């Protein structure tokens, strides 16, 4: 049985403690201390040609076929050799495409390592590394809290700025959608049309409140819009179950109904905060009425790098415009 805490941002790890102390923005900019020898990775079949690699860091979606390998996100750099070993159990083909859902290192930190490890004699060059243009802007610009510069080889080499980008790989259409100003300002969700699998990055993280990274352009309204976009794309099979399978940024496999619950939760919380802000309540007054009490036992946390308190502050600041 898999350790579920490994699936949720590495709660309880040294990394989580470091993140708590340093703050979200700083933490996502810094490579965490991870011992690959102790990390457990699990490759799980999703549907069609798509698999998911789960462990410390974000989920890595893996699509394999006659054309080679495509990844959505890379996980941490330190885990790239171990992740690659798991991918090689599925395919010996070259990695030709990597889509990065957003800038955080638990999803993008392994770009350079995976690109290098994914080269084979069949490669005609390094993989295309797709990301929304704001990911590149965030990587090339100054890092939060004067963090170290991100090396050029870790940048995407195929950024897009229109609402969508699509290509055809391993016998199916792959559609990349930009969902603006959600978890960050550069989020992408990736739809594998024949396999009927949607990979969402961190705009959807079942089991924990969404991380609204205000310092990188995230917002509550954008996050809700992104969840509604996911619901638009997904089509359930019989009686609102199955059909399109959703691979979240962290956590277990889901379908549309799970996203609906998550969207409902955030929409209801947004409605409450709007009302309280309209009444002129301060952040401290909002916290005092425990406005998320009904959802805290499902999604909240008092420890780790993203606590309920931090979520409440982010929602309040996002909706009030106060910094």
């Amino acid at each position, binding site marked *: 049985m898999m350790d579920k805490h490994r699936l949720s941002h590495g709660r309880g790890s040294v990394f989580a403690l470091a993140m708590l102390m340093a703050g979200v923005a700083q933490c996502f900019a810094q490579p965490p201390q991870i011992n690959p020898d102790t990390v457990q990775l699990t490759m799980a079949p999703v549907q069609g040609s798509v698999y998911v690699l789960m462990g410390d860091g974000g989920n890595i979606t893996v699509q394999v076929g006659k054309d080679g390998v495509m990844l959505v996100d890379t996980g941490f750099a330190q885990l790239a050799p171990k992740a690659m070993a798991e991918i090689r159990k599925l395919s010996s083909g070259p990695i030709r495409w990597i889509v990065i859902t957003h800038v955080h290192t638990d999803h993008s930190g392994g770009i350079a390592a995976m690109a290098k490890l994914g080269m084979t004699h069949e490669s005609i060059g390094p993989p295309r590394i797709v990301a929304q243009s704001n990911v590149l802007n965030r990587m090339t610009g100054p890092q939060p809290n004067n963090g170290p510069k991100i090396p050029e080889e870790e940048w995407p080499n195929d950024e897009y700025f229109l609402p969508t980008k699509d290509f055809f790989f391993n016998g199916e259409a792959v559609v990349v959608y930009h969902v603006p100003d959600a978890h960050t300002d550069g989020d992408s969700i990736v739809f594998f049309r024949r396999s009927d699998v949607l990979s969402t990055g961190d705009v959807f993280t079942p089991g924990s409140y969404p991380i609204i990274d205000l310092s990188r352009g995230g917002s509550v309204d954008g996050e809700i819009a992104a969840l509604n976009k996911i619901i638009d794309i997904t089509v359930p099979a019989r009686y609102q179950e199955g059909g399109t399978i959703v691979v979240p940024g962290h956590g277990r496999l889901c379908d549309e109904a799970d996203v609906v619950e998550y969207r409902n939760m955030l929409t209801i919380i947004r409605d*409450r905060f709007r009302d309280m802000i309209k009444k002129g309540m301060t952040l401290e007054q909002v916290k005092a009425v425990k406005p998320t009490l009904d959802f805290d036992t499902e999604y909240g946390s008092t420890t780790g790098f993203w606590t309920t308190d931090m979520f409440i502050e982010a929602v309040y600041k996002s909706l009030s415009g106060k910094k």
Partner: protein
Amino acid sequence: MLSALLVLPAFAQVDFTGEWAPLYHEDGPERLPGPELGDYTELPINAAARMAADTYDADRISVVPEYQCRPHGGDYSMRGLGNLRIWREIDPISEKLVAFHTHLLAWDSERTVWMDGRPHPPDWAPHTWQGFSTGVWDGNMLTITTTHLKINYMRRNGVPRSDKAIFTEHWTRHGDYLTVVTVIEDPVYLTEPLVRSDNWYLDPGQNIGVFGCEYAPEVPRPEGTVPNHLPGQNPYLKEFADWYGLPYEATRGGSETMYPEYQKKIAGEYHPPEKCSRYCKCTSLFDCNVTSK
């Protein structure tokens, strides 16, 4: 002699195969037309569940299109409206029981209770409405454990049940009657297990029809609308207490309110109406409505 031995059941188990009709002698108003708003009695819920139910707006089941065809959860299915079919799956080589399958009228819900000793799925596996069920025999009683449920309701007036809940069922057959006792454990919304029971009778002539469901938004709303009452602003919460003469606190649920000792605590505060005015009769779908006498 040899042929007699060959047809002996391996573990003296009971066969639940057949067509079963529900009996609504327990909790009829809750199970048939649906619970009153604000009625959390008999539920050992915590403050989180209470707030979720208090802020629930029943418009949600029509306004949120994805809710229109949402089935009951596996823990609620046996309480819901509709008839039941149970059949066995036998391994053709070994003749061993592999699974019981159930089909319920409501949302054509189908469920498999694996009897072959297989493990439950890993944490990363998708959750479903009916969950993943395995059964073991306890004498003639079948005990079923179900995990991997989707978020759903504990009671249909907004009291939630989480996706971390598991439930255990005990199926017992007494001739033509089937009794199902369900024990729900939910670390998110319950402070202690919730125990409920339902009964069925064998009805071999039963013919279950097709339920069918297609969602159809009928009132234009902004995308993503999720009806909800703001905390403290639900005007309907006290109706149940007023109608039945109960102290409001007694309707709020929680483990303390579930046990006989609580009656002493509210002695003098319970003033039942002199004459029954709501659900005075409720034994089946055909006689259970708010004005039934």
